[in-house]
């Protein structure tokens, strides 16, 4: 018995010493391409043993643990590598190869044609706040977008004019739902602001072409705005400015937020103070109410509701060469309602998601020109469903359908035109990160218009290839269809979609808060609307055209401390043979060269942001009836130069955080001429000018934050 006891103790000590014998585990930690992962962590699961790799990715450590074990290599931004090893007495050499999680910052993102402004972690060209802080933009999303390359500054008409496209070729989307009337109703020769407050949105995607199959009915460009989810906190605020006043309240509960805003604008005091070129009989007066409701039903689903109502009244005299007095009185009363509600739910660990959206808009333009009724009433109901799946690694698919019911009634004196359309579309798209360097996006869109009795299939393809750590090349191709504008549809029922084909090649270098983008594009227009000669209000689809050019964008937030600037340059070569053009010619809304420089400087001493925007556009063609048809659009307006300046000072008023905002457009007082109206019988011509030479904006905004 005693012997047994001694023996067992001996055995115990023997095994203990064996147990304590240390084994070395060594190896190298690399990524898939063999690059060492410096200072990666290596651990034996369940024990404290392990180490940190050195500068060459090599590691070695001693352990006393024995038997079947698991070795784990981990590194930030990479999937952990797990290896089973069996530890006996010999040293072990094992290599650990980690695969990169496709984290947003390494992922190849297709950049051809698209500018993204958002607050997400990924590096972006623009940030949401840029829209509010760009001089000359005065909080108008459209005007901020005009500082990007490929966008033409057109001072007298609504819309975004992109790469030789007209304003109506660009569509605006809020939370994936199309907005029928994103701008205040058109007024002759006056550019109206966008209806939407830029601070409502946390993300903006602006595409100058080659966009996703999710979007249709836009020949040139889309602007997709993503509204905020829950408001950050309860807050009340308001502002008073040169054009009016507003007041808002946001209430935030745990999973719900409600935002209510009322505004009243009246330009009478402003127009009386500063001399206007436009003769206002009644300066624009507008009231607006916005309601925003957000509810996070659970961790995985979100409901958003947005409603906006506004009423605008104005009247003005404008140059009208067709009228006997060469001047007409334009009167407008507009009522606009827009409702948008969306619901999104994620399933199965966010591998699946469903999006359901509906929107309704009613826009009533009661317009009169010298008491001739020119009213237009538009109504649009829309539904959209999108299902997204991302269960396969590196792949995302979505598919969905949409339907739009549209009714438009347009009057022109005693004539009444009506459009009743049911538009349906289906779309399917796949995003595939082929390797960590190559990304492909392939999409298809089907559309049918019940009014036109026509259908189309539009393919979309984009690819991106990372040429280096900071640079990439992308390519985009796509076909885009759009229903002709209302004015052509009222009296013609046999028209087809207009269409365009985009080819885009893009190079982007993004390093250390500096961005360089160069983009070449070619756009072919087909089936454009053409007037049938000799017939009034008769059109066919035999028009065509092209637009090609180069866009260059440079942004630098690094070189000058506390300052940020960007420079955009666009060269555009375009011609069209459409509408009533006798020969292929550049449209009157395009200029060959466009340059924009935006500069912003934060001066912390006076807690102010100071900035200027300079834009130059070479002259635009205009119609001169004194020339023969073969010289159509041969004449060019003077070049456009505009320097805007702004300063926003942050301060506390009544102990609340506030901003005082001052801005001035066309500081140098340049004479801007957008074109000419020629009077009959060689009686001279009237230039088309903006409504005022300079424009000012002064405002003060207070919140309870």
């Amino acid at each position: 018995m005693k012997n047994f006891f001694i023996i067992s103790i001996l055995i115990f000590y023997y095994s203990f010493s064996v147990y304590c014998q240390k084994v070395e585990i060594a190896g190298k930690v690399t990524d898939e391409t063999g690059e060492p992962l410096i200072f990666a962590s290596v651990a034996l699961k369940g024990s404290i043993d392990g180490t940190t790799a050195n500068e060459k990715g090599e590691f070695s450590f001693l352990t006393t643990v024995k038997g079947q074990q698991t070795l784990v290599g981990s590194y930030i931004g990479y999937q952990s590598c797990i290896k089973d090893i069996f530890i006996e007495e010999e040293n072990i050499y094992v290599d650990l190869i980690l695969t990169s999680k496709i984290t947003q910052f390494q992922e190849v993102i297709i950049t051809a044609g698209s500018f993204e402004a958002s607050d997400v972690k990924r590096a972006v060209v623009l940030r949401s706040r840029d829209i509010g802080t760009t001089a000359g933009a005065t909080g108008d999303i459209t005007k901020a977008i005009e500082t990007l390359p490929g966008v033409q500054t057109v001072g007298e008409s609504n819309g975004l004019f992109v790469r030789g496209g007209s304003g109506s070729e660009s569509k605006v989307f809020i939370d994936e739902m199309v907005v029928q009337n994103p701008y205040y109703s058109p007024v002759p020769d006056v550019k109206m602001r966008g209806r939407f407050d830029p601070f409502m949105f946390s993300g903006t995607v602006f595409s100058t072409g080659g966009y996703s199959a999710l979007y249709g009915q836009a020949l040139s460009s889309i602007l997709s705005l993503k509204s905020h989810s829950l408001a950050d906190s309860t807050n009340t605020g308001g502002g008073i400015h040169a054009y009016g006043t507003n007041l808002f309240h946001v209430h935030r509960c745990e999973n719900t937020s409600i935002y209510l805003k009322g505004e009243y604008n009246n330009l009478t005091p402003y127009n009386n103070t500063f001399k206007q070129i436009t003769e206002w009989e009644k300066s624009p007066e507008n009231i607006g109410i916005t309601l925003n409701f957000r509810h996070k039903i659970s961790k995985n689903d979100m409901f958003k509701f947005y409603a906006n109502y506004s009423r605008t009244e104005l009247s003005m005299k404008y140059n009208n060469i067709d009228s006997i007095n060469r001047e007409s009185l334009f009167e407008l009363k507009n009522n606009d309602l827009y409702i948008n509600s969306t619901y999104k739910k994620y399933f199965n660990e966010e591998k699946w998601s469903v999006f359901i959206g509906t929107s309704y808009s009613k826009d009533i333009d009661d317009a009169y020109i010298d008491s001739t009724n020119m009213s237009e009433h538009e109504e649009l109901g829309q539904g959209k469903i999108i299902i997204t799946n991302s269960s396969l690694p590196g792949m995302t698919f979505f598919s969905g359908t949409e339907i739009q019911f549209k009714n438009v009634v347009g009057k022109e004196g005693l004539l009444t035109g009506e459009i009743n359309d049911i538009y349906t579309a289906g779309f399917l798209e796949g995003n595939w990160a082929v390797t960590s360097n190559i990304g492909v996006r392939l999409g298809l869109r089907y559309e049918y218009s019940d009014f036109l009795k026509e259908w189309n299939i539009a393919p979309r393809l984009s690819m991106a290839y990372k040429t280096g750590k900071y640079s990439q090349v992308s390519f985009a191709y796509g076909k885009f269809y759009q229903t002709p504008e209302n004015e052509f549809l009222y009296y013609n029922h046999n028209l087809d979609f207009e269409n365009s084909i985009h080819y885009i090649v893009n190079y982007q270098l993004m390093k250390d808060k500096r961005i360089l983008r160069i983009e070449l594009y070619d756009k072919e227009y087909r089936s454009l609307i053409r007037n049938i000669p000799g017939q009034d209000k008769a059109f066919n689809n035999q028009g065509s055209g092209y637009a090609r050019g180069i866009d260059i964008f440079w942004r630098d937030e690094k070189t000058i401390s506390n300052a940020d600037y960007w420079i955009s340059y666009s060269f555009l070569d375009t011609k069209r043979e459409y509408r009533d053009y006798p020969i292929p010619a550049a449209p009157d809304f395009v200029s060959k060269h466009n340059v924009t420089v935006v500069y912003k400087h934060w001066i912390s001493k006076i807690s102010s942001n100071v900035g200027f925007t300079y834009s130059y556009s070479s002259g635009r063609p205009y119609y001169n009836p004194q020339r023969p048809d073969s010289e159509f659009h041969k004449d060019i307006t003077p070049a456009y130069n505009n320097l805007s300046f702004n300063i926003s000072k942050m301060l506390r008023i009544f102990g609340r955080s506030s901003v005082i905002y001052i801005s001035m457009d066309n500081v140098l007082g340049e004479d801007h001429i957008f074109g000419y109206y020629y009077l009959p019988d060689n009686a001279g011509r009237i230039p088309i000018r903006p409504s005022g030479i300079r424009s000012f904006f002064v405002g003060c905004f207070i919140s309870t934050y």
Partner: protein
Amino acid sequence: MNKIVVTILLHIICMGLFAQDKQYIETMKETIATMDTATSFKTLQQAANQFERIGDAMQNQWLPYYYSAYCYVQISYLVKPDQLKDLNIEKAEELNNSADKISPDNSEIYVMKGFILQAKMNIDPMTRGFKYNRECLGMFEKAKVLDPENPRSYLWHGVNLFNTPAFMGGGKEKALPLLEKAIEKFETFHLKSDIHPDWGKEYAEKTIIKCKN
């Protein structure tokens, strides 16, 4: 005889447990020393890795995860570009949440939550300030409620105000009383063990000097 065997076996088991506990404390002490004296990304990363390994091995200790999170926040201030800073902060959040699960309602962990949010804001204060600042201050407030004697909640609340521009409701004058209170609490702070959080006093003193200038 049986009694002797049982006694010896018990003794060995107790020895083992004691040794394990002792080893834990020793390793923690060593790693804390590495972290405290770290001047480079390399040593901080080593400490972060080591803390995480300890945490994974022990499973029921919040301190290793807490310290690992603390290391990652410090790393986030050293690395570039911003996206990499964000990845490090995300990692810190993950680790601190693991600590939170093991030890809920722990004042130190709430201070760390605020400290992490602070680092997140610092990457892009103009864009993120509005979004995270309230949440961040909320964490320090909660930390104060959970343990009014914790000096670090006053310290980081003070530092937050010090870094917030006056027009946003911050400023030196508002920061100073909080920082002074932090110093007061540091003087009387009772350390639970050698390995419990005991950092920030020097930083508080430095910030007070900056406030007074």
